[in-house]
C-alpha cells in the first residue's frame, strides 16, 4: 500500500488517459469547422462586447425598474378611479371598484331581509314548486357473484 503522498502508481495509471484519442483525422477537419463557423458570423459581437462592457446587469436593472414603474402606475391609476366615482374614467365600462361601490349604495336603500334562516318561517309565502318533482329512484348495480 502506498502512502498518501506517494502517487507513483496513480501517475502511471493517469498516463492511460494520454492515449485516449479522438477518431482518426478528427483534427484534420477541426480548424476548418471552426473557421466555417466564424465566417458564418458566429463570432460576431455587439458593440458593447467589443468595448468590453458587460451590459447584462444594466439591462436587468432597467427591466426591474420598468416592471416596478408599471406596478406603481397601475396602482396609482386604480386609486384615481375610485376617487372619481367611475364617471367617465373607465370609458363607460364600469370597473370592479365602481361595481362594488354601486352594490353597497343599492344595499343601503334595499329592504332588510326577513330572515337569514333558509327554512321558510310561518307567514312567509312558500314557493311550492320547490317541493314539486318526481320520485327519485336510486338504482344500484347488482352485486357480482
Amino acid at each position: 500500500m502506498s502512502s498518501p503522498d506517494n502517487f507513483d502508481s496513480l501517475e502511471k495509471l493517469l498516463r492511460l488517459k494520454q492515449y485516449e484519442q479522438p477518431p482518426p483525422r478528427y483534427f484534420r477537419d477541426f480548424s476548418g469547422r471552426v473557421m466555417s463557423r466564424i465566417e458564418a458570423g458566429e463570432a460576431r459581437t455587439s458593440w458593447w462586447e467589443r468595448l468590453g462592457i458587460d451590459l447584462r446587469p444594466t439591462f436587468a436593472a432597467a427591466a426591474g425598474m420598468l416592471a416596478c414603474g408599471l406596478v406603481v402606475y397601475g396602482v396609482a391609476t386604480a386609486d384615481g378611479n375610485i376617487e372619481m366615482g367611475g364617471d367617465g374614467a373607465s370609458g363607460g365600462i364600469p370597473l370592479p371598484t365602481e361595481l362594488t361601490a354601486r352594490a353597497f349604495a343599492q344595499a343601503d336603500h334595499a329592504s332588510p331581509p326577513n330572515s337569514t334562516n333558509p327554512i321558510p318561517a310561518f307567514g312567509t309565502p312558500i314557493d311550492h314548486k320547490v317541493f314539486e318533482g318526481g320520485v327519485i329512484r336510486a338504482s344500484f348495480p347488482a352485486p357480482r357473484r
Partner: protein
Amino acid sequence: MVGTMKAAAVIKEMELPPEPPPPRTKEGADDSEIPDSALVKASRDGDMPAYDQLVQRYQDRIYATIYHMTSNHEDANDLAQETFIKAYSALKSFKGDSSFYTWVYRIAVNKTINFLKQRKNKVSLSLNDLDFNIENDPELVAFVSDKTPRRDIALAELQEKLNMAMQKLSDVHRMVVTLHDIQGLSHEEIATIMECNVGTVRSRLFYARQQLQAYLSDYVK
C-alpha cells in the same frame, strides 16, 4: 504573409493528423516558425489563415483538456470549437499580457467549468478509443500486466474506471489533475490559467490525487 500562411495551411492539410499527441511545446516553438504574437496580430487584422494556424497549433491540447474534464467526445468537440470562436471574437480585447496559449486555455477552462455547472451531476461518458501506441509504453504495459494477463480487457476496464473516478472529483480538482498530471503543465502555468496562486494549485492537486487514489484503490497499489 497571407499567401505564405495559405500555403502553410495547405501543406498542413496534406499531412496526416498528429497521433499520438505531440509533446507540449512553448509559445512560438511549434513546428511553424511564425510566433504566436505575429499570428495574433495578423488575425486581428482579418487574416483568417493566420487564425487557422493558431487553431491548428492548439486544437489538440484544448480539445484534450476539455475531453479529460468532460469524459465526453461530443461535448469536448462542441466546447473546443466554441472556445476558438470565442477567442476569435475576443481577439481585439487580448492585450498580450500573457501568451495567446495561456489566454486561450483560460477561455477553454472557463467555458468548460460553466458547462459542467449547467450539466451538474449528469455525467454521460463518451470515451475515445485508446491509441495503439499504448503498446509501446513499457511502464504502463507492465503496470497493467501486473494486474491481469488479459491486457485488452484490463485496459478498457481501467479506462472506464479511471474516467468515472475523475468525474467524481470536483470541477476544480479535476481541472488541476488534467492540466498537471495529464497535460503536463507546470504549477505556475496552471495558476495563471486558473487565476489562483501556486499554493492553491499544489493543495488542490494533492487533495485530488488523494481522492483519486481512494476511488481507484483496487487498481492502485
